[in-house]
């Protein structure tokens, strides 16, 4: 089931995966991703989102089932063979959750050069791409800096630049806005929006529901049992509070407004808005009726 009906980029068929000597972290997952889609994988911590991205990038391989890229099943042998292996690595970029793991070269320039040099591209072409990518992401002044000395936002942009320099047609993003300040977050979202406008397929793993409308046109929800439970639009998924509660993406807890104490399901970082009438799902209570903890 692909979202836009275009060319199928990834096809995941009944894929299961478990880390050695551990319980399964993905069970019978099936879906397809079409060219140019913006797909979000959402689920609680440990639901298998990051593992699924690793499977899509051919870094892990399913214990059962299969993952295919443009019709070619991803296997160690296929990824080590030319021309498919190098083409896949250039075509599919993976933005890791931890930028420190992704940035392993002594300078930002070396970081950007790493991928193209591995592809065996000519030096002048590599230098041209580095210059263009640094300009595009407005990080030219960081060129000679050591990645370890950068801020979290800068690291994320450099990590993204190290992928874009290869001109990928698919980006796999693992919690791309995690740990970023609001300005860096919105800058990154703008960049991703621009990339999608250029036809790049975006597959994002996140548990931040507030980002869904900005990041995706289609959402896959993974349960805490590591199964795919919903495949829908952001609007449909966000409206289905029953499912979101069941997969631990929203929570219900009591809170107080003056003398009114009530509970209802919601997900927020700092604040949220809601009515105070007797809406379905709102349990009301007067403060006087509720036993307060003794101080």
């Amino acid at each position, binding site marked *: 089931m692909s979202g836009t009906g275009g060319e199928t980029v990834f096809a995941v068929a009944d894929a299961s995966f478990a880390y050695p000597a551990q319980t399964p972290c993905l069970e019978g997952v099936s879906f397809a991703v079409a060219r140019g889609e913006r797909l979000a994988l959402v689920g609680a911590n440990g639901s298998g989102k990051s593992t699924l991205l690793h499977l899509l990038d051919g870094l892990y391989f399913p214990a059962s089932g299969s993952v295919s890229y443009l019709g070619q099943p991803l296997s160690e042998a296929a990824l080590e063979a030319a021309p498919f292996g190098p083409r896949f*690595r*250039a075509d599919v970029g*993976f933005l890791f959750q931890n930028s420190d793991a992704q940035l392993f070269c*002594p300078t930002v320039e070396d970081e950007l050069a*790493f991928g193209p040099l*591995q*592809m065996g591209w000519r030096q002048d072409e590599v230098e041209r791409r580095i210059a263009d990518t640094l300009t595009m992401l407005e990080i030219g002044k960081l060129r000679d800096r*050591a990645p*370890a000395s950068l801020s979290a936002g800068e690291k994320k942009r450099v990590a993204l630049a190290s992928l874009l320099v290869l001109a990928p047609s698919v980006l796999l993003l693992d919690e791309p806005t995690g740990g970023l300040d609001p300005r860096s977050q919105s800058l990154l979202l703008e960049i991703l929006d621009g990339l999608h406008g250029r036809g790049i397929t975006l597959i994002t793993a996140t548990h931040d529901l507030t980002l869904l409308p900005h990041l995706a046109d289609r959402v896959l929800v993974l349960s805490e049992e590591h199964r795919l439970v919903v495949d829908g639009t952001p609007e449909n998924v966000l409206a289905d509070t029953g499912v979101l509660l069941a997969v631990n993406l929203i929570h219900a807890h009591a809170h107080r407004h003056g003398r009114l104490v009530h509970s209802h399901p919601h997900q927020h970082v700092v604040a949220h808005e809601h009515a105070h009438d007797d809406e379905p799902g709102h349990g009301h209570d007067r403060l006087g009726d509720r036993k307060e903890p003794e101080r």
Partner: protein
Amino acid sequence: MTPLPEWLRPGFAPGAAAPRRRRGSLRPLRRALAALEAVLSMLVSDSRDDRRTGLLRNADPRAKLLAGVVLIVAATLLHGLATLGLCLALAVGLAAAGRVRPVRIAAVLGASLALTTLVMAPATLDVVTPGAPVLTVARPGGGSLGPFRLPATVAVTGAGLAVAARMLLRTSACVTLALVLAATSRPQELLTGLRALGVPQAFVMVLTMTERYLAVLLRAAQELHLARLARSIGGIGVRREEAWAAAGIGAVFRRTRTLADAVTLAMIARGFTGEVRLLRPPRWRRLDWLVVTAAALAAVALVAADRGLA
């Protein structure tokens, strides 16, 4: 909401703590650990040296590797203290000419002195290296300890001191030459140089990953140390401090293994095939012939002088 436990509420005053025995301050130990960490960081990677210019900076890494290996082999063949001293002086001179920062040279020589002294201390004693006693350090007075017979005295010997000095000079010369290589070249250049000199890919790949992981290991150790300091109020005693250090080492290795796995995956994800490639590969020039020839001549001269002096 689950009510807060009483002790977590504002204004809660804990009871008086049990009186603690006064213990020795661990501040010197912590300072020493911090200094060791700083030295290690500097040895692994010091970008301040990368931006400098100087002799050897522009030489092809293959030439520098060849020259370095020739001189290190020569240092291992030397026996005379005078020629070993000369070799060390040459190495320090090369480091200075390569504009390696003096503090970095001092750190390497200091580490070499400390480790060699630690390892070679027993070799200076007459129980290991017989010879004319120079300084008596203990008087066990003969007798026996279980199945072992004890000597009447334990003394440092002249021959023992010579053995230790020889080892110290040789180690210091070799380590300083290695520093010259590391400080005047970027890691990738040296690794590609090794490949160009015919070192097998698997070996160079292990070195590449080691170079990457050292930085990761150091960062993890620093974070753990800071987290520990953030929760430290007073001394907890040497035994508990030792227990913490042992647990800390285990935690650092667990964390670095996870991070190292992620680094490997990130490299593979960007097409890493095991070959290190450079954006601007160096070219072999006249300077490089000069470097290799000078190193070969110096090595031959040192060995010849050593044999002659011996």
